[in-house]
């Protein structure tokens, strides 16, 4: 693959992560525990949809032809989506959504900070915007981790279950494959495998402060980058793409 094909692939992966996670967040709209949180979750969903658009737009300029941001979002099926599994898991209860978001954002922060140093100007610029949002997300997530972890017995129980259920999906955040390796070698993308220790330290600290236990089980689910998803993604895409698929090729 040429560099630009590799970069496009990387950008699509990042776009997929952001779109799918943004979709799950947007499912909370009008369903949050209280109005301020409805606003906040919708706002975070919007950040992720915005991030998806930036990555897809860049991928579209690299691949050329008729592709635009919507081509990536609306005309690929589940086997072609390359998001990490953690992003697609059904939203679950509020504890699950908060834990997923924290575990992901705590990764996204150092990741975007590293990507800001990319030799690719466009990726660096997207990362800079994402990094600003992520700082706010992490602060918000951390507050919730503490409040719900150290809240009531029920909230603690729900949080611990969510952490345990999610833990095996975090390993995939730090996987590196041939696409990554080629880009890492050229200083275009950071080596995520090197971010794991820092992430684990941050996360362990928050989990401890939240009166929760670090999950011990060392199972790991992976496959998202190769389009091997959980069965939930197909349903998500059926919904997300329904209008475009029913009326293909139109402007909206």
């Amino acid at each position, binding site marked *: 693959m040429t560099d630009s094909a590799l970069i496009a692939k990387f950008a699509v992966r990042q776009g997929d992560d952001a*779109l799918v996670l943004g*979709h799950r967040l*947007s*499912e909370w*709209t*009008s*369903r*949050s*525990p*209280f*109005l*301020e*949180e*409805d*606003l906040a979750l*919708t*706002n975070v*969903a*919007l950040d992720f*949809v*915005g991030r*998806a*658009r930036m990555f*897809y737009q860049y991928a579209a300029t690299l691949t050329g032809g008729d592709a635009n*941001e*919507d081509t990536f*979002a*609306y005309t690929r099926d589940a086997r072609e989506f390359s998001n990490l599994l953690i992003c697609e898991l059904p939203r679950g*209860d*509020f504890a699950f959504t908060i834990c997923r978001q924290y575990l992901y954002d705590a990764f996204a922060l150092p990741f975007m900070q590293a990507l800001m140093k990319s030799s690719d100007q466009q990726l660096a610029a997207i990362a800079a915007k994402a990094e600003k949002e992520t700082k706010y997300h992490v602060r918000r997530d951390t507050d919730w981790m*503490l*409040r*719900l972890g*150290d*809240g*009531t017995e*029920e*909230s603690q129980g*729900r949080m611990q279950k969510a952490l345990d259920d999610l833990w095996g999906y975090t390993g995939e955040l730090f996987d590196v494959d041939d696409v990554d390796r080629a880009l890492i070698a050229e200083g275009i993308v950071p080596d995520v495998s090197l971010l794991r220790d820092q992430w684990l330290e941050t996360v362990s600290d928050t989990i401890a402060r939240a009166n929760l236990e670090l999950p011990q089980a060392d199972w790991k689910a992976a496959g998202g980058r190769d389009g091997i998803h959980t069965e939930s993604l197909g349903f998500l895409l059926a*919904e*997300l793409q*329904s*209008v*475009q698929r029913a*009326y293909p090729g*139109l*402007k*909206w």
Partner: protein
Amino acid sequence: MMNDNVVALPDEHKFQARIDAEEKIEPKDWMPEGYRKNLIRQMSQHAHSEVVGEQPEGNWITRAPSLERKAILLAKVQDEAGHGLYLYSAAETLGATRDEMIEALHEGKAKYASIFNYPSLTWADIGAIGWLVDSAAIVNQVSLQNTSYGPYARAMIRICKEESFHQRQGYHIMMTLMDGSDEQKAMAQDAINRWWWPAMMMFGPHDGESAHSAQSMKWKIKRRSNDDLRQQWVDQAVQQAHAIGLEVPDDDLTWNEERGHYDFGPIDWDEFNRVIAGDGPCNRQRLAHHKKAHDDGAWVREAMSAYDAKRRAKSSAA
């Protein structure tokens, strides 16, 4: 007891004199109980409308047909949640708590804009809601920017600024559809067919039949009559519809040269009353949806209180 009445009268006169002089009433000012109650009713109803209004539109966020539209819709619904917050806060300055207002909603005592009891069935409905419903809201809200209660008037000013974006975005969806395939045009026409009359009803009953109107006008909680606002909206919406090739689903619609306004057909007040009374297509779903979210979130709110209590205990112990 007698004494209270005697004392109250000069206050009421003074209060009305301030209103008449276009002074703003502020939370700590004296006000008649009826003024307070009426305002709480009106503002909480307005707040509930913003919040329940998230549902028909939220219904299409996950299915928006382009990422740009998805982002715009998310931002819009987020604004609505924000408007709900302004309005609850403004109502709280009058001593009503949010919990009480939400309880009144769940018990069916408090209303919300009856238009949100219609289902959003196609993507074009998102256009129609933004265009017709938000423009109707703006016409009403602009008139409330100089309502007599200060916090309410200030909330209206903030809200109006954002609503005008929404209205334009909704109209833009309709324009794009009318510029598209035959299917898209049909979808747009179908949407105006279904939303036109409910939007007309948003302004409420005719002036003569409006329960709260006369006193509200005197108190300047309301600034313009229902029929007046409705006429203004019709005049602008009809022109916008025609500009992009949409037909208005009203056989009686004609330009009245003499009045300088559109005449329009009779409104189906039976339907209006039925929907207001709880028997619209989605009343049950809307309330059940709001109640479920509230109930599902109970443990979260409890955890927050518990956490805060622990923190306070720790900091006072330290």
